[in-house]
Each structure stands twice: as C-alpha cells, then as structure tokens.
C-alpha cells in the first residue's frame, strides 16, 4: 500500500504527533469561540472552520477518505445550505440567557467532561497494534483483500465488496432523504 499519499508515512512519528496535538488545541480554541458567539452567521463560519481543522486532524491520523468527506460535506456543502437558511430566517442575535440557566449548563458540562475523561482511561492507546480491534477483523481484511478482491484500496474493498448490502442501504437512505426534503419544502414556492 506504499502507493498511497499519506502524511504519517512521510513525516517522523514524533513530528506527526506534535502536529496532531497542535491542530487539536486549535480545534479546542475554535470550540470555545463557538460557545461564546452570539451571531448566527459567525457560528456557521466557525463550524466551517471546525470542519476544516478536524479534516487536517484526520489527515495526520492517516484517514484521507474521512478527511476528504469532511472537507467537502462539512466545510463546503453544509455551510452553503446553512447560509442560505440564515438568509431566509434573518440574521438575528440570540436572546441573552439567564444566569441560573448558564450555571446549570456549566455544571452539567463539567459532569459530562468528568464522565468522558473517566471513560477514556479504559480506551486502548492510539495506534497500538495489539488492541482488540486490530487483532481480528482488521487483520482478516488486511490479509485477504488482495486474494478476495484484488484492489489496492482496502477501504473501497470493504465498502463495495465485503459490505455491499450496507452501501446499497446507505445510497437508498440518501435518495429517500432527498425526496423527503423536496416533498416537504418545495411546496413553499407555489
């Protein structure tokens, strides 16, 4: 699979990890800015920036497929659709939230953060080869894709050949979603 362009195979592992940590910190900064923003347009643009930065994170984690999808869908398409919606409903500022509610939300978020941190202690190390996930199914795909399907891209082999039924279902779901959007919203013009 050395024909692939992947950033982790070019850079040193340490440099890659440092860049990943820097991008993640940038992501946290964008999140804080998103929480305090009081304007709809600003929030949408910040969400677009969030998508772009997390796509760079995916590139450092060696997942170019996910990065491509995130850039095209999250940063471009959904931003355009949401900006159109803002044009329709008007760019009004949010109403100010009362202080007790704010305090309640902060306490709830802190409890959630504590719970997630406790849960993350049980997770396996990032990129460790001897974890439960890597030993069974992933090993099978890596060993047998060349003989069963014969294409270099393992992701495409899993999506199209091993899991063909799932992809058929996904495609039908996208079609049904599009038809539902047309049925609900297109009557507005008449």
């Amino acid at each position: 699979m050395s024909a692939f362009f992947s950033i982790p195979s070019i850079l040193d592992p340490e440099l890659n990890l440092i860049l990943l940590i820097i991008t993640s910190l940038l992501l946290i900064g964008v999140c804080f800015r998103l929480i305090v923003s009081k304007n709809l347009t600003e929030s949408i643009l910040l969400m677009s920036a969030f998508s772009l930065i997390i796509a760079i994170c995916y590139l450092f984690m060696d997942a170019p497929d996910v990065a491509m999808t995130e850039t095209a869908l999250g940063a471009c398409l959904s931003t355009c659709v949401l900006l159109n919606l803002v044009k329709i409903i008007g760019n009004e500022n949010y109403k100010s939230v009362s202080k007790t509610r704010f305090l309640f939300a902060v306490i709830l978020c802190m409890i959630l953060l504590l719970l997630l941190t406790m849960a993350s202690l049980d997770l396996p190390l990032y990129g460790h080869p001897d974890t439960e996930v890597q030993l069974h199914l992933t090993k099978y795909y890596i060993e047998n894709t060349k003989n069963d399907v014969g294409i270099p891209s393992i992701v495409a082999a899993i999506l199209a050949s091993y899991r063909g039924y799932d992809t058929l279902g996904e495609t039908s779901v996208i079609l049904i979603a599009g038809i539902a959007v047309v049925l609900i919203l297109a009557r507005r013009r008449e």
Partner: protein
Amino acid sequence: MLKYFSILKIVVSFIIPYLILYAIYIQLNGEVSPGGGFQAGVIFASGIIAFDLINGTKKTCEFFSQKALIICGIFGVLIYASTGLVSFLFDDNYLNYNSIAKIPWVNNPLTGQHIGIFFIEIGVGLTVSSIMCLIYLVLKED
C-alpha cells in the same frame, strides 16, 4: 452590492472545471487511491454549487432542474441494484461480483470484482451528487 464581484466571478469560474475534473478523477480512481463514489459525488455537487453562487439559480435550473436531479438519483440506485442482480443469472448470491467472471469474456474472478466495484461506485456517485445539489437548490431562496 459587491464592489469587486467581477473578480470573484472570474476566479470561481476558473476553478469550476478543475473541481469537476477532480471529481471525475476520484470517481475513476476509487479503487487505487483514497476516495470513491461518495466523495466524488460531493465534490461534483460543490462544483455545481460554485456555479450556482456565481450565475444565479435561474441559470442553474436550466441545466439541473429538480425533476432531472431526482431522476438521476433514482437512476444511480438502479445502477447499484441491477449490478447486484447480475449474480442471479449464474445461480449465486445477491451482490456477489465473483459471478460476473462467469460471463464468457471475463474469466478472472478478480476482474469480475473490479467491474462490479466500478459500476456500483458510479451508481453511488450519481445518487450522491444529484441529491446534494437537490437539497441545496430546494433550500435556496430566489
């Protein structure tokens, strides 16, 4: 309203052909490089959205009307489903591309897998691109 709109218009019009070319490249190289039908469809849709941002909805709807987009989406799912149906002809399971190799001029089962994956990726790309354009155009206010 915008003072320098013509600069934007020329720059974006310059980018659009390359976006569509890139989408076709990803579509055809889905087996050997990252990406596939879904990514190619979304990138193609963003090319059409760029065209719509520059030229207005009226001109876009001349080329991509709602009816045509829905028909394209249904046609994509049809391509996918009928590729799976080929294996029924040779007494095999649904969506098993190995049986495409039993067509006389295709002998290798791996070639059958190649052909099957190529066709279903085309179906996925067609559906995704048309539905994404459709959602954008429906939600746009004239």
